[in-house]
C-alpha cells in the first residue's frame, strides 16, 4: 500500500515537472514560426526537388555515386518533443566538468528535469556514458554537458568511458555495464552498423539506452537524440546559392558512411543540385582530421587554379582548408580575383573567430552541447520502466540552429546570426 502511494507521488511529481515546462515550450509556437520549422520546410522543399531530378550533372554524379539518397531518406526530420520551441539566448551557463571551459548550453530547457534527486529518491541510479574522443573539443563538450546534468541529481552516479574510436571496445563497455546491471546507458556511436547489436543486448537485459547525435543500427533503442545534420548541409547549400550562382567546388568530407558525412554532404548536394553553375573539382575524405584536410586542400590548390568554393563537412576540416589556402596565399584566387569561399559546419570558437575576420564565409552550428538531453532522456526512460512517468518518444530531435555569418542576412527566410550573437560556441577560446 505504502509502495503504491509512493509510486503514485513520484509519478505525479515527474509528470508535474514535465508539465511545468510544457506551457513555456508550447506558448511561443503559436506566436511565430520557429527557425526549426522554417528549416524543416526548406529541407522538405529541396529534398522534393532533388528527388524529382538534379539538373546539375556533376552534382548528380557525386550524389548517386555515394548513395546519399539511401541515407537521406531514412534520416528523421520532424518536430521537437513536447512541442518545445528553441530561441537564441535560451539555456544555462556553467563550467564544463572535463574541459574546465565556460559553456553556455542551449537546450537545458528541453525535456527539463528539476535539480535534485530523480525518480525514487532513495535509490541510486547508475548510468554509463560511453563515447569516443576525450581528446576532441567537440566530444569533450558533449561529455561536459552530460556530466553537468548528472551532477545536478545527487542520486545519479555517472560513469564516463572513452572507447577511443574502437567500435568493438564500445560494445565491450556496454556488455560490461550489462553484466554490472546498470540502470541506463547513453552512447555516442561513431558508426551505425557495429553498435546495433550491443544496444540490442542492453535493451534485452532491460536497460534503457539513449544514443546521442549519431544513430545505431538498433531498432530497439529507447531513444535517439538526433542532431541537425540535415539543417547543416542544407544551409551550406543555401548560403552558396545566395552568395554565388556558380563556382568550382572542392570537398573535404568525413568518413564515407558516417551519418555526419552522409546527411550533411547529401543535403548540401540536394540544395545545389538544380543550379547548373556549380562544378565538382575534387572530393576528399579527410576523416575529421585537420591535418588531412590541410594536405588535401594543398594538393587541390596545386592541381586546380580556379577553385572558388571549399565545402567542409566539419569545422576541423574547414580550419585545415583555411590553413592550406593561407599558406598557399590563395585566399583571393577564385576566378575573377574573388575571395575563395569556405563553407563550414560545427560552431567551434576558432571557426567563429575566422567568420568574424571574414576568412570563413559561414558555419552551420552543430552543437555538441546535447549530452544533458541524453541523461535526462535515459532517466525518464528508467522512470517509465518503473511506471514513474510517461515514456519519451523514440526520436528526440534537437532544434535546427540558424547559420552564422559575418553580417546578419536573411536567406530564404532564415535569419542568420553573427558570431557575437552566438554564446554557444564550444572549444578553447582563441586569441584575437
Amino acid at each position, binding site marked *: 500500500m505504502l509502495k503504491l502511494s509512493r509510486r503514485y507521488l513520484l509519478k505525479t511529481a515527474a509528470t508535474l515537472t514535465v508539465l511545468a515546462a510544457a506551457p513555456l515550450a508550447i506558448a511561443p509556437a503559436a506566436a511565430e514560426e520557429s527557425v526549426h520549422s522554417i528549416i524543416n520546410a526548406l529541407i522538405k522543399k529541396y529534398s522534393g526537388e532533388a528527388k524529382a531530378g538534379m539538373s546539375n550533372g556533376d552534382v548528380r554524379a557525386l550524389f548517386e555515386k555515394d*548513395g546519399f539518397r539511401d541515407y537521406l531518406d531514412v534520416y528523421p526530420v520532424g518536430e521537437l518533443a513536447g512541442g518545445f520551441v528553441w530561441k537564441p539566448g535560451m539555456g544555462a551557463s556553467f563550467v564544463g566538468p572535463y574541459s574546465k571551459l565556460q559553456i553556455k548550453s542551449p537546450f537545458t530547457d528541453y525535456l527539463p528535469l528539476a535539480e535534485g534527486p530523480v525518480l525514487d529518491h532513495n535509490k541510486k541510479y547508475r548510468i554509463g556514458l560511453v563515447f569516443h574522443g576525450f581528446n576532441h573539443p567537440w566530444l569533450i563538450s558533449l561529455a561536459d554537458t552530460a556530466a553537468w546534468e548528472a551532477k545536478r541529481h545527487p542520486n545519479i552516479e555517472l560513469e564516463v568511458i*572513452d572507447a577511443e574510436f574502437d*567500435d568493438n*571496445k564500445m560494445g565491450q563497455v556496454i556488455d560490461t555495464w550489462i553484466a*554490472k546491471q546498470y540502470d541506463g546507458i547513453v552512447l555516442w556511436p561513431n558508426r551505425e*552498423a557495429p553498435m546495433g547489436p550491443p544496444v540490442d543486448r542492453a535493451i534485452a537485459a532491460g536497460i534503457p539506452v539513449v544514443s546521442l547525435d549519431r544513430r545505431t*543500427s538498433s531498432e530497439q533503442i529507447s531513444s535517439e537524440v538526433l542532431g541537425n545534420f540535415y539543417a547543416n548541409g542544407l544551409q551550406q547549400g543555401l548560403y552558396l546559392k545566395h552568395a554565388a550562382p556558380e563556382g568550382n567546388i572542392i570537398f573535404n568530407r568525413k568518413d564515407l558512411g558516417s551519418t555526419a558525412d552522409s546527411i550533411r554532404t547529401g543535403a548540401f548536394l540536394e540544395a545545389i543540385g538544380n543550379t547548373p553553375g556549380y562544378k565538382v573539382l575534387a572530393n576528399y575524405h579527410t576523416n575529421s582530421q585537420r591535418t588531412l584536410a590541410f594536405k588535401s586542400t594543398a594538393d587541390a590548390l596545386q592541381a586546380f587554379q580556379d577553385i572558388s568554393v571549399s565545402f567542409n563537412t566539419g569545422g576541423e576540416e574547414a580550419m585545415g582548408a583555411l590553413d592550406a589556402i593561407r599558406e598557399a596565399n590563395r585566399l583571393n584566387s577564385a576566378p575573377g580575383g574573388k575571395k575563395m569561399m569556405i563553407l563550414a559546419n560545427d560552431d567551434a570558437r576558432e571557426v567563429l573567430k575566422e567568420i568574424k575576420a571574414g576568412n570563413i564565409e559561414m558555419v552551420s552550428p552543430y552543437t555538441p552541447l546535447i549530452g544533458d538531453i541524453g541523461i535526462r532522456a535515459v532517466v525518464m526512460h528508467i522512470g517509465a520502466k518503473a511506471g514513474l512517468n510517461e515514456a519519451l518518444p523514440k526520436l528526440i530531435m534537437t532544434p535546427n540552429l540558424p547559420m552564422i555569418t559575418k553580417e546578419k542576412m536573411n536567406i530564404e527566410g532564415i535569419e542568420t546570426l553573427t558570431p557575437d550573437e552566438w554564446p554557444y560556441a564550444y572549444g578553447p577560446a582563441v586569441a584575437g
Partner: protein
Amino acid sequence: MSVLELSTPRVAPLLQGALRDPIIWLILLIFAVGALTSEYYLTALNIENLMRSIAVIGLLSLGMTVVLLTGRIDLSVAALMIFSVIVGVVVMAEIGPMLGSRWLVRGNTYAGPIVPVILIALTTGIAVGALNGIGVAYFKVASFIMTLVSLTALRGFNYVLTNGHPYYLKAPLYSWIGDSKIVGIPVSFVIFLLVLLALMGFVNGSMRGGRFYAIGGNEKAALYAGVKTQRYVVLAYAISGLCAALAGIIFTARLKSVDAPLAAGYELTAIAIAVIGGTALAGGIGSPWRTLLGSIAFAAGLNLLAIWGVGTWYQNLAIGVVLILSVGLSKMSRKKTQA
C-alpha cells in the same frame, strides 16, 4: 610427502612447472582480486564476455605466435581479419546476380547463403597470409616491411570494396557464431579452443611443427640441417592468415556487420599478447598454450579494470606496464636458463 609427489609421474612435472610460471599466478591473482572487489566479476554473464574477448584477440595472437616463432612478424593480421570477411561478402554479392538472385539487399544487408562467405573468407585469409610468406621467404622482403605494406594495402582495399559502407550480416548461422553458447560456453570461444588444440598438436606435438622453433632459433642451422625453411615460413604466415580470417568471422558475427575501419590497431594487441605469453620477438621461444595464458591474463586484466570503471587511458597505461614487465621477466628468465 607433498601432494605433487603423490601425483602420476606425467602430471606432477607439468603441474609443478605451471605453478612456477608467473603468468599463472598473475591470472589467479586477477581472478581473486576480481572476485573480492566486485560482485559482478565472476558472474556467468561477465565470464561469457571475457571468453568472447579472449576468442578474437586469442585467435589473432595464436597466428602471430606461429609467425613470431620463426623470428618474423605479421602486422597485417587486423586488416586481414576484416578484409577476408569483406571479400567473402563482395564475391558472393557478385555471384548472386549470375545465379539470378540478389544477395545484397536494401541497406547493404547480405541476404545470401552464409557458408560460402565463411569459406571464401577463410580461403582469403590463407591466401593473403601465404602471399605475405612468399614475399618474406622467397623475395627476402623484411617481414616488418612486407606485412606493413599488406596492412596498408588491405585497409585501402577494405574501403575500395565496401565504398565505405558497412555490410550487415544477419544470417542465423552467423548470429549463432556470434551470440550462441554450447553448454554455457560461447561458440566463438569453442572455435578458439579448437584452433588452440590443433595448433598445440601441430606446433608442439609434431616434427614439422618443431621446425618453426628451429627456424626461429637458428635459421641457418635449420637450413643446413635440411629443413626447407622457406616453405615453413610461408606455412607460418598462411596459418596466421587463417587465424586472422577466423577471428574476423567471430568478430563480425558479434557485431552482425563488417565495416572497413574496424579493428584498427588490433595487430599490436596480438603482438602484445604473444609477448605477455612469453613468445620471444627474436623467435624460437613460445607456444600456443602460453599464448592462451597471455590472452587470458590480458583480457581478464582489462575486464577487471572495466568492471572497476577505470578509464581506457589508464587501461592502456596498464597494458604498457604489463608488457614492459613481461618482456623484462622473459629476458631475465632466458638469461637464467642460459647461465
